[in-house]
Structure formats: C-alpha cells, structure tokens
C-alpha cells in the first residue's frame, strides 16, 4: 500500500505545485469576472431567485426526509447488507483484501506506525475479543503494539477503489439481476431493488411487499384456481410458480398436460418429444432424435450397444490410472530410499562409485570362480576316478546361467563357457551402456545374488563329492580285503604244503636211518630225488614227489580259481565304481 500511497501523494504534490504556479491568476480572474457578473445582474432578479431557492430548499428538505424515512423503513424490513457476504463480480487486487476476513476491505482502518490495513469490524472483533480496554492492541499481522489511526488515516483513494468494485445484489437468489458498485449497494437495496421488501401502499395495511408489487395492497385473501388453497394475493405468485401442487401446464413439445412444478423435469427426463442424443454420444455417435424414437436408433447403433461396455472400460481405466498414480508415488518413495541407501554405500566406499563391473573386486572374484569351475569340470569329465552327476555340457550351461551378471547377456556367457580352451578364458565385459541395470546399486545387489547362488552350488557339489569319496573308499577297501583274504588263503596253502613236505621228508629220513649204513649206494639217488634231503628209500621218495606234484597242481588250480575270482571281483568293483 505504502509505495502506491507515496506515489499518489507525490502526484498530488506535483498537481498542487503546478496549480499553485499557473492556476491562481486565471482562477482568481475567472472568479472575479463571475462576481462582477453576479453583481451586475443582482438588482433585477434578486426577489425571484430568492423565492426559487426557498422553494427548492423546501423540496430538497422534503425529499431528504422522505429518503431517510424510506431508507429507515427499508432497513427495518430488509436485513442490512453484510458487506463481507457480498459476491464480487469484478476481479480485485489481493492487496485490497483484509488479511482477517480475506475479502475486499470494508470500512478500512489503518494502524499507527505499521500502516497495516483491516476492516473496521474485523479489527474490532479481534481486539474486543481479547483486550476489552478499547481500540488498542497488537497488530494482527506484525504483532506490534499499536492503536487505530483516526478516520483521516485512510486514503480516500483506497475507499474509492473499494467502492468501485462491482458486486451482485444480495437479493440475486430471489431474482434480482442487478450488479452495482459496492458503494451503491446499500442504496440499491433500500431504494431500487425490485425484490427488496417495502411497506404496503395501503395506509391501513402493515404487511411488507416486494417493491415491484407495491402498486396496490395485495394483502387480501384469494384462493388458487387450481388447488383452491387460500392465501394472500402477495404470496400467490410464488405459490403459483413454485408450490401449487395442482397447476397443470402444457408441454410445448409433446402437447401433454403435466404438473407445472414438474415441467422442467418432464422435459429433461420423460417427455417423448424432447430431442436427446444417442446413448453412444459420448463415444462418437452424432445422432439426435426424439426420446420416443431413440429406441429404434439404439437397436441399430453400434456405439449405443457398446456404450455400457465402453463405460465400464472407461471406469476401469480411470481406476487403473488412479492406482497407477499411487504406485508411481510409491515407486518414487522407494527410489528415494534406494538413493539414500546408495549414498550411504558410496559414502563408505568411494571406489565403488565407478560403476564399472570389472573394477568391482566382488565381480572379479566371481569371474575367477566361474573360470575355475569350468576348468575343474573339464578335468573331471576327462579323468576316470571322479564323476560328476551332470554331463559336462550341462554343467557348462548351468554355469552360464550362473554367470548372468548385470553387464553381459547369458548368450555371451554361454559362448564363452562353451569355447574349447578354458585357459584362454578372458573376460571383456561389454560397454556399460548395454547394462540393463540403471544404478550401480542394482548391479551390486544382483552380483550379490549371483555370488550367493554360486556358493550354494559349490556347497552342494562339495557334499556330493564327499559322498562319492566315502563310497569309493569303501569299495576299494572291500576289494583289498577280498584280495588279502585270498592271499592269506594262498599263504596258508603253501604253508600246509611245506609242512607236508617237510613231514614227509622227516618220515623218510626216520625210515632210512636204520638202514643208512647198508644202503650207501642208494644215497646218491636219494640225494638226487629230494635236493636237501639226507637220502632215503627210492620208492618212498618217488611217492612223495608224486604227491607233492599233485599238491602243487592243486595249489596252482586253487591259485587260478583265485585269480579268476579276483578278476571277477575287480570287475565287479569296477562296475560298482562306474555305477557310482
């Protein structure tokens, strides 16, 4: 307000200065001329003018008293216009608003020092509410202790601007269409508004009437032609227009007689002659026809038949959009959360902010494990002793699925895994632009997942391997035990033979010893027959040798059988192993 104010005052000063510099001579000369004229004409017309003036004054006085009286009467009959409740037609500047009631200032007052402006009523209510001491208190806006400025404090310009605002007549609900300046609204209601109440023109009647009806007294009883209710003539119009339950009206379109009150509803909703659009109009059908004939059209119109379906669709779509909005909001929040998480992550480890996958040690480790496992898988499949349940090609494919890191596609991984020399396995991660993950955090998370999978797989493989090993050891043990038992049997067989041989030899020696001296000639023979033997009976030696030979043969047979058994056993164990 204040710059405006100051500018105005400046202009005023300019105006006054110009007027002070130029106009005084002219105005003084003008007035002087007028005065001279007046003096010149005075003697001739003084009596007539005096009489006229007196009459005029008398009439004015009468008019004034009449005006005041009618105003007072009107104020008595009509509720005073509440300026705060008015409906404004013209747009107004927000600076003209009272900060308390938020409508254009009504009877503005200005506070000392802070120059804040309020409606008088608003400020009075605020202050008497809290400090009954009087028009003194704190400014509601700046809270400074202050008091009211006198009437002179408010600029006339402000008051004029406010009074220029155009408002709607408060009786507009009753039918007054007047839009007048706010400054004139009280006069409009009190003196001109056709719908304001005035005294009945009849001297004896004391009931109020609308101004437009106030040509004669309407306060006598009549009865409605249609419903035969008795009422005052003054109320008949309203009754006739709005209340009468029996008044019939002719519908202009279908020529049927309907209740007057329901005429509008009839035309809008039921009249068969009203032209209405096709039910599919919303979806593009342009046909309009009478209500009675729309049925016919509806039967043939595709859009009309589809209308319920389309409507349902539309409703659903709206619902979907609504929920989508909610979801979008949710996603936004989640993303915010992710971002903060990311911030926390990267604040701790700034190296990771370079979101290149190969730079991240975790990923490298993952790559190595992948590499190693392919190598072991290959060696496994070639070696005889270890067998993985899955064939190598399958293993590679499963690996390739494990290797689906963010930065390269599964097909790439598969190609690499299937390439023949696993030693040359070199990793060239594709450029980051092709990465399906937008943020390094996602990348990290997915990598974490992949690692976890890998660990789980390795653990499973380990337990598998463990089982297989123990089975292998068990098998081998059995086979060795068998072999040992067989060897033990063989050894005991040989031992028995040796025992038998020695005992036979000893027997032979014992038989020979009585005739040792007599049979010196046979000594050479006996020594020839039984190696280290001390000589003996030739026939006995022969028999011994024979039995030894059969025994040896038997032993050999047993050994052969053992060999075969062992072979079988080994084959069996081999089979068992291959089965494993």
């Amino acid at each position, binding site marked *: 307000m204040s710059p405006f104010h100051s500018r105005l005052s400046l202009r005023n000063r300019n105006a006054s200065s110009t007027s002070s510099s130029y106009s005084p001579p002219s105005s003084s000369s003008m007035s002087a001329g007028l005065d001279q004229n007046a003096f010149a004409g005075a003697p001739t017309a003084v009596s007539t003018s005096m009489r006229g003036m007196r009459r005029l004054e008398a009439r004015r006085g009468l008019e004034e008293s009449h005006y005041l009286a009618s105003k007072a009467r009107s104020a008595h009959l009509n509720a005073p216009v509440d300026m705060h409740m008015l409906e404004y037609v013209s747009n107004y500047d927000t600076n003209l608003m009272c900060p308390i009631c938020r*409508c254009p200032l009504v009877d503005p007052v200005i506070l000392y020092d802070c120059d804040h402006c309020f409606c008088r009523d608003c400020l009075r209510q605020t202050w008497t509410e809290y400090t009954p001491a009087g028009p003194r208190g*704190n400014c509601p*806006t700046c*809270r400074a202790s202050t008091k009211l400025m006198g009437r002179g404090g408010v600029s006339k310009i402000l008051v004029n601007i406010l009074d220029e605002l155009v408002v709607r007549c408060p009786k507009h609900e009753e039918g007054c269409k007047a839009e007048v300046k706010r400054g004139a609204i009280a006069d409009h209601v009190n003196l001109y508004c056709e719908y304001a109440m005035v005294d009945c023109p009849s001297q004896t009647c004391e009931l109020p009437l609308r101004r437009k009806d106030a040509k004669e007294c309407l306060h006598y009883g009549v009865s409605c032609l249609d419903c035969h209710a008795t009422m005052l003539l003054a109320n008949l119009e309203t009754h006739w227009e709005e209340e009468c339950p029996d008044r019939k009206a002719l519908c202009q379109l279908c020529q049927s007689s309907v209740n007057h009150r329901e005429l509008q509803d009839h035309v809008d909703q039921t009249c068969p002659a009203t032209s209405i659009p096709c039910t599919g109009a919303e979806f593009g059908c342009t046909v309009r026809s009478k209500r009675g004939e729309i049925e016919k059209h509806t039967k043939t119109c595709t859009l009309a038949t589809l209308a319920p379906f389309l409507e349902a669709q539309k409703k659903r779509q709206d619902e979907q959009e609504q929920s989508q909005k909610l979801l979008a909001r949710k996603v936004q929040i989640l993303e915010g959360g992710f971002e903060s998480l990311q911030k926390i992550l990267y604040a701790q480890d700034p190296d990771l902010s370079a979101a290149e996958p190969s730079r991240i040690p975790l990923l490298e480790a993952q790559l190595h494990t992948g590499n190693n496992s392919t190598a072991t898988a290959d060696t496994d499949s070639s070696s005889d002793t270890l067998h993985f349940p899955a064939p190598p090609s399958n293993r590679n494919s499963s690996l390739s699925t494990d290797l689906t890191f963010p930065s390269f596609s599964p097909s790439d991984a598969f190609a690499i895994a299937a390439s023949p020399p696993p030693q040359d396995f070199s990793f060239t991660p594709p450029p980051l632009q092709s990465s399906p993950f937008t943020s390094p955090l996602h990348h990290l998370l997915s990598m974490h997942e992949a690692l976890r999978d890998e660990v789980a797989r390795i653990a499973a493989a380990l337990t598998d391997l463990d089982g297989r090993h123990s089975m292998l050891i068990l098998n081998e043990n059995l086979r060795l035990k068998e072999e040992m038992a067989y060897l033990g049997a063989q050894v005991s067989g040989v031992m028995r033979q040796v025992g038998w041989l020695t005992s036979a030899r000893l027997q032979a020696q014992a038989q020979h010893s009585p005739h040792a001296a007599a049979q010196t000639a046979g000594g050479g023979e006996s020594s020839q027959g039984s190696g280290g033997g001390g000589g003996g009976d030739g026939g006995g030696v022969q028999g011994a040798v024979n039995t030894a030979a059969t025994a040896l043969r038997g032993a050999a047979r047993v050994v052969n059988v053992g060999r075969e058994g062992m072979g079988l056993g080994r084959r069996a164990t081999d089979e068992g192993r291959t089965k494993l």
Partner: protein
Amino acid sequence: MSTSSPLPRAATGSPGGSSSAAILLGRQFKQMQTDKDIPGISCGLVDNNIFEWEVMLMIADDCPGYGGGCFRARISFPSEYPLLPPKMKFETPIYHPNIYPSGEVCISILHPPEEDRYGYESAAERWSPVQTPETILLSVISMLSSPNDESPANVEAGKLWREDPKEFKKRVRKCVRDSQENAWD
C-alpha cells in the same frame, strides 16, 4: 485417497451454512485446492463439512528426520474462526517432541491469545486472525524439522531428542517408514 479427490460442486461454494466463518473457510479451501505453490499438501473435507479439514502432508526429502513421510492430519475450525484458532491433530502416528502421543499438535500459533496457562510463550507467538490454514501447515512443517524443546508435548520424545539424538532419529525414521506404508491403505 478422499483428500485430493475433486470436490463436489456444493463443497466449493459455501458448504456447511453461510456464516462468515464458513464463507471465509470456503474461500480459503478453494484457494488451497487451486494453489500450486504449496507442494506436498493436499486437503479435503470430512463429511463435506467446511469446519473439518483432512490434510495430507507429504514432507519434502530435505526435511531432516521426517523427509519422505506422509502424514494425515485433521484440522477442526471453531465457528468463531478466524478469531479463535483451529485445532490440529495428526491421525498418522508421529513421534515428535511437540506432538502429543494422541496426535494433537502443540504449537504456539494454535493457542488462543488469552490463555497463558503454561507461561512459556508470550502473546506475541500465539494465534492471530491473520493466520490461514496455509500458514498453519507451513508452521507445522517447519516445526517438524526444528522441534521446540522448551515445552515438549511428548515428554519422552523431548528427552530423547535432547539426550540421545541417534536413538531419536531411529524412532523418527521408523515412524516415517510406517507412515509411508500406511499412507495409501
């Protein structure tokens, strides 16, 4: 989501009678609905009653502690508005030194000027009829980020805020997370 749904036409005019308070509130409500300068606030009426507003506060992320929270609150205006202040109550559970565990907001500008039962605040900080729902909500949002521990409404929260800021922050984050989860139920 009744808060941000477009209002029936009756509500934008002068619902709930035609007293000057109702007219003023209707005008301010309409302004809140159309104003685009206040982000994160959406309001609606409870039972189409102009004296009962339901407000959804979506706190901006730069607000320390409460950033990202979605709090539902209810503002009840007296029939003497704007001469007497409205009451504001959070319906979403919120952990804050200046908000009672029941959700009622304890903020000096919502205290009527004549009562001074606590002696904590001078009249200068209390209700003034020039306050609007908008200024109230802005004050509440700024209160969230900077609690006033001189007269804590939630004594436990005030104590925690003073003595164990870390734990306080944890509790606040939890209530913010809960508010996000329950905001659209």
